[in-house]
């Protein structure tokens, strides 16, 4: 770790001000950022902690929309239960330490191609709320570790319309237990949405063929014969592109089955 200043604002306004400084970076649960700093792969001069800001924390269920503060930790989402598939997802991120520190805002800002929350946000048609604007999930994820967030812009909340049916199935990478392939499916006012994480070199994506097939028949059998091409899938020591492409089909079926 290199030396840095730590700011611990208690209001959003103070946080934004602090983030205006030279080489300042938000720190949320630190579950991604702190290991990066320990390896000296980043050198921010100031870290602005978000977890002391009450207005960034908490979960509200209003009119079928679940609003989760950006600095809300995974364990709180897991406990909430008003969007069961989302709570289930949060309850299977990492281990208890990670879940009690790591936050939804940090996860979505980081947009790790193997992370779980991006699949939930995209499949739910969630809205990413920042200090400046609201971004539809469809426009938010722009590539590996890339998002529509501007420099200094922070996620203050995420709004999830609660669908009628939903489920997340994560097939774990054996070492990290992040998603080797994770699929989140929803059926609701927005129709059927299928989002896949872990698999693609482009990060989380919607599997539109599956969505179409499931729109007319929301059952695993509707996916028979459908597959994604191996081209563009991640290949590494945990699985070839062919294996990941195959898993997308299998795990999507399981997610549909689980969603019932």
């Amino acid at each position: 770790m290199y030396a840095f200043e730590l700011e611990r604002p208690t209001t959003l306004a103070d946080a934004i001000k602090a983030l205006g400084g030279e080489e300042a970076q938000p720190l949320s649960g630190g579950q991604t950022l702190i290991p990066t700093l320990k390896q000296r792969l980043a050198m921010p001069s100031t870290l602005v902690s978000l977890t002391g800001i009450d207005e960034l924390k908490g979960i509200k269920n209003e009119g079928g929309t679940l609003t989760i503060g950006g600095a809300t930790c995974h364990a709180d989402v897991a406990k909430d239960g008003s969007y069961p598939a989302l709570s289930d997802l949060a309850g299977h991120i990492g281990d208890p330490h990670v879940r009690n520190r790591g936050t939804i805002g940090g996860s979505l800002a980081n947009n790790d191609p193997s992370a779980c929350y991006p699949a939930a946000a995209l499949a739910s048609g969630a809205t990413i709320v920042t200090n400046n604007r609201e971004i539809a999930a469809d426009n938010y994820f722009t590539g590996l570790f890339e998002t529509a967030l501007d420099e200094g812009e922070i996620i203050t909340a995420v709004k999830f319309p609660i669908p009628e049916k939903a489920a997340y199935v994560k097939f774990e990478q054996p070492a990290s237990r992040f998603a080797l392939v994770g699929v989140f499916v929803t059926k609701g006012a927005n129709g059927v949405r299928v989002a896949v994480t872990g698999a693609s070199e482009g990060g989380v994506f919607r599997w539109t063929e599956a969505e179409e097939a499931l729109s007319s028949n929301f059952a695993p059998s509707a996916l028979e014969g459908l597959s994604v091409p191996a081209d563009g899938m991640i290949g590494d020591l945990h699985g070839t592109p062919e294996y990941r492409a195959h898993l997308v089909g299998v795990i999507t079926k399981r997610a549909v089955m689980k969603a019932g």
Partner: protein
Amino acid sequence: MPADGGIGAPMKRREDVRFLTGTGRYTDDLNRPGQAYVYFLRSSVAHGKINSVNTEAAAAMPGVIRIFTGADFEGIGGLPCGWQVTDKHGQPMQEPGHPVLAQGKVRHVGDPIAAVVADTLDQARDAAEAIEADIEELPAVIDMKKALEDGAPKVHDDLTSNLCYDWGFVEENKGAVDEAFANAAHVTTLELKNQRLVANPMEPRVAIGDYDPAGDNSTLYTTSQNPHVIRLLMGAFVLGIPEHKLRVVAPDVGGGFGTKIFHYAEEAFCTFAAKQLRRPVKWTSSRSEAFMSDAHGRDHVTKIELALDADNNFTALRTETYANMGAYLSTFAPSVPTWLHGTLMAGNYKTPLIYVNVKAVFTNTVPVDAYRGAGRPEATFQLERLVDKAARELGVDPIALRRQNFITQFPYATPVAVEYDTGDYEATMAKLEEIADLSGFEARLEESKKKGKLRGLGVNCYIEACGIAPSHLVGQLGARAGLYESATVRVNATGGLVVMTGSHSHGQGHETAFPQVIAEMIGIDPSMVEIVHGDTANTPMGMGTYGSRSLAVGGSAMVRATEKIINKAKKIAAHLLEASEGDIELKDGAFSVAGTDKSVAWGDVTLAAYVPHNYPLEDIEPGLEETAFYDPNNFTYPSGAYACEVEVDPETGKVTIESFAAADDFGNIVNPMIVSGQVHGGIAQGIGQALLEGCVYDEDGQLLTGSYMDYAMPRADDVPYYAVDHSCQTPCTHNPLGVKGCGEAGAIGSPPAVVNAVVDALQRAGKTEVTHIDMPLSPSRVWAAMNQ
């Protein structure tokens, strides 16, 4: 005997109280006054020529005390290798130098180039980043077979090739073995890999060098399984410090699994630098550093063949193995694929003719050395996979084929130079059938089918050689050390005992098991016995803990020393009781005169030894303290039979362990709870190897599995409930306790059971072309095998 604390009592481990409450004292908990910190600048390339290392700017940075490079170690010894293997032509192995800090070249990612000592670790690290190391990258050799090709880049320019040795065992038998293969009714062949593993003890390595100028004494605090061995190797071969001027302390050590046996550069560096700088110097490995600097394990590529006659009797076995040494020879590396592997190739079977060929190869990777089981897991894995494959090819039951070929007469001299003293392989197999409920397998198979899962059953046997080792024998085989063990038993005036043992404990439970033996011998409560280990200043010269040797060798030394104590105490008791020594009996902590009610308590005798008012001073000295060294006259041979049932998800290839049973013969058992724990841990590591773990380099020698994000360790939910049994006991015939050792068995016996089970599941599902899958059996590999 003390009803609740002698031999055979399942006592809870007394040391666990401090381990589980955070009051253990590990090396990193120690800090010396005025201590400085070292950070090692390590190579980021696998192979490179060091053109220059410019430390000028770095040396001027805040807090920097001094920066050392390879040049500072010129004229100082390199890290020694403790075992010399002789090749099949009678020539000694090629033995390259291993400088403390790289000189001329870097040879693996992680090879230390420079060491920065500063007031704080961050300052040392900052300065290390400012070092300008001009390293010209050279082509690396990673694959062993490519490393042996003509014209391959050489890891060591001063050697003739990357071949360390080409070993034939027993070379004289080769012709007869080949002939048996020519005459065989059936030959089964299998090619496989025993993948490279990283030991990953929970506690990373730490070293603190300290120097006292007043007495010219050096002290090294280190995470070691064998402090005396480090003192000897480092003192005599690296730094030239006589042993009486060097103290090595290995306090609580958080797991070793072999990788803390060896003498490492960081230990020598800290000891050296502390003396140079007149300041204590501390190094604590990060987990990332551990991946690239702790000696790795396994990494064999093998072709093995079995010849059978028309009645399915094994007639000959032939193997060819490539064993990766990595870039340098770690302390005991050459012995692992040879004397700890070739000698085990008979397994549990009476195969009359065996030939083992091993080519040890240098590559641009981290050195490889002993890891839990060391050579014996590699032997067991290939043999037990092979026998399974043979049974399948012959259409016979794999258990029946094993039984038919079991060794049944003991002692049994194998064709690979060892003599098994005792064993009963039929007994452990029968016990396994019972505890694994093998007869219920078909019903469980049906249940799995209903769930859409492929179920498989894998069974295997194992034999291992431990209680390492007879010094006269290992001396002939190239060991540059003796492998006895020592103990000093000190009885205090009030009757309590302190045992100073050369056996180090880093998770094995010596502090609980050793007192149980003494409690049994004297008839006192085990709480009256304290175990001291891990400090060369207060324990006799010992060889440390590895090779499942502590109780068999270290425990035997303690028994011998305690026998001397008892003999002397009987003399004192005879004097106190005014009886003849021959009539004195020791029972339940009291000496009595046979056939009378005259007796004197243990504590009265020990008091007399130190307050010798009424004492036979003309015959014996006061005091009650004895030392014994014990050198075994054979290895011990634990054996057993293991069974694993798996389910394979046909859609994803994911394997889950449904059950695991282990029937072991460890000879006599001192503490069955500790034994079960050792077996559980060993099996967890074996399952880890079979399903999860694997150290992977890319072809440029970059470590792809440099953290837990990519190196998969087994976790609690990866392992099942274990059915373990150690009621089959054929006591060792040549040590006083009749014990064999249990520390490595689980890791040795379990990988083939898991792989046999997965192959069985796929075979039952009609995938008859799948006869082997290389470990780890990750979902992607199993799926690929099913869809090849």
